[in-house]
């Protein structure tokens, strides 16, 4: 079935609204612990890279 352009646009808009609603409702269940853990890992990786180049192990602590 071929939808007229306006109907197709409405369908797309409705789909987008549904996606946005799902995104907003999911936002209340953000896993902050996981986000902070990723930050720690990324921070430690940078510190280790710096320490490797400077020979200073204090930065990795």
């Amino acid at each position: 079935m071929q939808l007229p352009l306006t109907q197709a646009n409405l369908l797309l808009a409705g789909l987008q609204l549904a996606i946005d609603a799902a995104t907003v409702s999911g936002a209340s269940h953000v896993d902050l612990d996981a986000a902070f853990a990723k930050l720690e890992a990324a921070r430690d990786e940078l510190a280790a890279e710096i320490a490797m180049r400077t020979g200073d192990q204090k930065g990795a602590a």
Partner: protein
Amino acid sequence: MRTLITAAAALLLAACTGLAVAPEGASVPLAGAAGGAETCSRFAYAIGTLAEAGSEEARIAAHVTGVTAAAQRATCLLRSNRISVTSSQQALGLIDTARADLAAWRVAACAWPPGDARRTACVRDPIAAGRARDRVIATRGLLAALIGI
């Protein structure tokens, strides 16, 4: 206030730059850079992302993600010899500052999982949370200016 405006402007610029970044490998590689065409641009956009809508947890998480991207980009740039060790040390200092302020914001906003004992016992401090958030935004602006562009 001026610092905040400057930081916000830098962050906005970084976000725009991130959006306009060429696909990986499209830019000219630096001579002697390890990894050939590595530009580390895949981390640039996330450094500039902000989430001012949604829950407090979502806003904090967006900033944590931005700072994480900054750490990943700094590591990538350092490994490909595109920034100096001194600059990467400055970035690490800013990341540690942002990390401490993000933790302070989380405590002040009582952003603990539902059912968590810390959330039950927590007393929200919106003023402290707002100040910590402003500091995070300012630090992210400095990070964006240092390694985001």
